[in-house]
């Protein structure tokens, strides 16, 4: 869009004293579009009173249609959940899933997981948090209380050993006194070795996928560039790429497992850098590097001949030619590849976590699957939404980068 035209259409005369006089709805809307938040641009245009009627129409359309579709989905889901059930398993209802997340019922609804114990209603809600401790949120809350209890009992241990130390000192046994003091110090240095909550697991998943994606990028971009600039190298690599590209993460797992077992020393058990995390990241890497590699190769191979001729005229060296001409020109394709890669990486992560027993979302799903409680299936549904949501979020981030390096689509 032409910037002069934008400036002219801005309502800059209405309230000269206000500081947002320079507010340029078109520019903001344009930025939002670039950030992948195009949904909000009618709102900012409306605030700027840029064709209000049109904006309202657009908002209605952009909001109402998805909301209607989502409601339709919820209704279908409810119907399915009441139909698809066997003696041992069932599809949880939306209300059950909500309960599995929050640990509370929606006001006015009866308990979604009626369970009786010897004829009496089960004690659902924790005295501490008022939430069902088996739900995702309730469990996280229960962990906080458990930590508090731990700290209290640890304090008792410290006091007791300090007491013993004083008693031994009074008794003249200085060696023992020092030892007890040492023990007390040891207890004081301990921190709570708690259980991973769902929220911890989200972070571990994000960390794992980031590592896998980072390594994949470091491998895929240079190899892709080489494939792009050298047809011979490309011919050499092609069979390998075609062969390994379609392999499932489940097949990669045992191989990566062997490599990480061989190559990584056992970390301390409270470290976040568990071997399982590296195994999982390795599987993500092997599955997600192909789109970047192929897109980079194609991008590099299709750099405008004129650009390359310029490089020739300037007598640029090989590295300079790659760095100054080829890479910048192929950035849009590379980023398209990266965006596809992170999508693939996130998708295979769940399977990789399950196989490697990495403490991420895949492990959560697997554990819940094994629990055999009705609520655990509902927690899997929650995890599905979270996994989808994060995948969407990651895609948006990559989209922003992709748009930032793409010059052709300024009008998008």
């Amino acid at each position, binding site marked *: 869009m032409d910037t002069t035209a934008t400036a002219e259409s801005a309502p800059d005369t209405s309230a000269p004293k206000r500081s947002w006089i320079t507010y340029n709805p078109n520019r903001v809307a344009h930025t939002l579009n670039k950030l992948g938040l195009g949904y909000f641009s009618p709102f900012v245009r409306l605030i700027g009173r840029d064709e209000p009627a049109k904006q309202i129409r657009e908002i209605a359309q952009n909001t109402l249609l998805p909301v209607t579709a989502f409601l339709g989905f919820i209704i279908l889901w409810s119907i399915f959940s009441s139909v698809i059930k066997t003696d041992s398993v069932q599809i949880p209802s939306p209300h059950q899933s909500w309960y599995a997340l929050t640990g509370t019922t929606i006001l006015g609804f009866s308990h979604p997981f009626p369970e009786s114990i010897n004829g009496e209603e089960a004690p659902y809600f924790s005295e501490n948090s008022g939430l069902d401790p088996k739900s995702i949120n309730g469990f996280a809350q229960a962990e906080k209380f458990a930590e508090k209890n731990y700290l209290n009992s640890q304090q008792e241990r410290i006091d007791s*050993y300090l007491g013993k130390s004083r008693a031994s000192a009074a008794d003249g046994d200085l060696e023992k006194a020092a030892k007890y003091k040492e023990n007390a110090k040891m207890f004081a240095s301990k921190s709570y*070795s708690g*259980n991973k909550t769902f929220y911890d697991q989200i972070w571990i998943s994000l960390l794992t996928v980031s590592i896998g994606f980072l390594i994949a990028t470091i491998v895929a971009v240079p190899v892709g560039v080489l494939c792009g600039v050298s047809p011979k190298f490309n011919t050499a690599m092609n069979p390998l790429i075609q062969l390994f590209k379609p392999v499932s993460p489940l097949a990669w797992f045992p191989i990566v497992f062997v490599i990480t077992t061989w190559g990584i020393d056992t970390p301390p058990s409270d470290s976040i850098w568990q071997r399982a995390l590296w195994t999982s990241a390795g599987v993500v890497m092997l599955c997600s590097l192909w789109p970047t590699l192929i897109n980079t190769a194609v991008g590099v191979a299709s750099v405008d001949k004129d650009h390359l001729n310029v490089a020739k005229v300037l007598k640029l060296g090989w590295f300079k030619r790659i760095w100054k001409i080829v890479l910048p020109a192929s950035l849009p394709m590379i980023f398209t590849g990266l965006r596809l890669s992170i999508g693939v990486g996130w998708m295979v992560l769940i399977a990789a976590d399950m196989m490697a027993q990495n403490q991420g979302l895949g492990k959560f799903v697997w554990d819940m699957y094994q629990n055999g409680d009705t609520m655990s299936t509902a927690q899997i549904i929650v995890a599905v939404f979270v996994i989808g949501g994060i995948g969407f979020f990651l895609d948006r981030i990559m989209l922003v980068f992709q748009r930032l390096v793409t010059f052709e689509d300024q009008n998008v």
Partner: protein
Amino acid sequence: MRTKQTIQTTVAAFLLLAGTTTSEADLLDVEKDTLKFGFIKLTDCAPIVIAKEKGFFDDEGLSVTVEAQGNWKELLNRVITGDLDGAHMLAGQPIGATVGFGTQADIVTAYNLDYNGNGITVSNDLWAKMKPNVPMEDGKPVHPITADSLKPISDAAAAENNKLKMGMVFPVSTHNYEIRYWLAAAGIKPGFYFDPGTGQVDIPGFLNGDVELSVTPPPQMPQTLEQGTIVGYCVGEPWNQQAVVKGIGVPVTTNYDIWKNNPEKVFGVSREWAEANPNTWIAVTKALIRAGHWLDAAPENRIEAAEILSQPNYVGAPFEVISNSMTGTFEFEKGDKREMPDFNVFFRYNASYPYYSDCVWFLTQMIRWGQITEQQPDSFFKEMAERIYRPDIYMEAVKELIDDGEFTEEDFTDAYAAFDGGGYKPATTDFIDGKTYDGSKPNEYIQSFKIGLK
């Protein structure tokens, strides 16, 4: 009684000096204080979970994380690689690993987690066919239900070349040997891992069998049964009670009826780990003994344990299901709930002591079914048992606990008797077929079986 008197006097004097009523004693100098233990979602992981939740590990100055594992193989692998410091293991696992059936590794144990706790469940369909063959009394089946009632059905199915398929949890698991024992006691051949005639080795263990036993992870048993892939299974709790509560199968017998007070799970560590961390091993065993003792100390402790185990990060099954077996009852056919006070034993009958004879029994079964392909002299069993089972560590822990004033020597009369008597249980006939088992004469025992390699 040994030095009991002196110990009590010292403890009393000590408490007086310390001016405190708690009984923390001198801590062991542990080599490694941050540990991670693995378990499989089964109620018999309880001592590990309880030791953590009740702070028994913390008392020893150990920071322990307890992590659910996907399956037995994975768990064993992670103990071998050192990702896990120790784990809840099938009693047969350290033995299978040491003799090299499946994964070869040196695994040792100083703590027996529990006795009994398994059941055999069949599908509703199969039960309907078996029931007419089961002797009844007052409208209820007479227990124990033997596989005699299954024999005609399995014969008919085998004749149609449609062998009955059943599930067990792992090739070297107690469940595999128990369901085999149960079947073979009634003349049903469960299939062999080795045929001495042809020299053929069969990894799945289907050779010359009347039924096919295959591996299914415990938590998937009920679903696999419901889907019809198998018609019966042998598994630990809560997965038998789950089947009857949800109405998809009928538990017909428990391993208590197959062999009273049989060893079930152990706490296994790798030999390498044990050698590098001797004090830590003793400290962990101390905490586990306290947990086992707590579990058997009072009925209300079992209720609390069932509540803890039903947390999603532990076993995660509904409280209702877990408490059924943990509190000493077992529901067979729907409504046929019977008292089984010894269904889960963690400490009583000296259950946590690692008896050599228990190790030997597993070895005899491995030979019987061809997992160990060569016949062995009696000395082999003894050597293996002494290599894998470490009652000396258990007794060290006991001694520490007594020194701490946490327990008295009376609490461990049986353990001292066992240790001083050589570590073998006396010969027993507590089996479903009434055979005599004497751990010191393994070959005689192997010879006594009609079905089995010898």
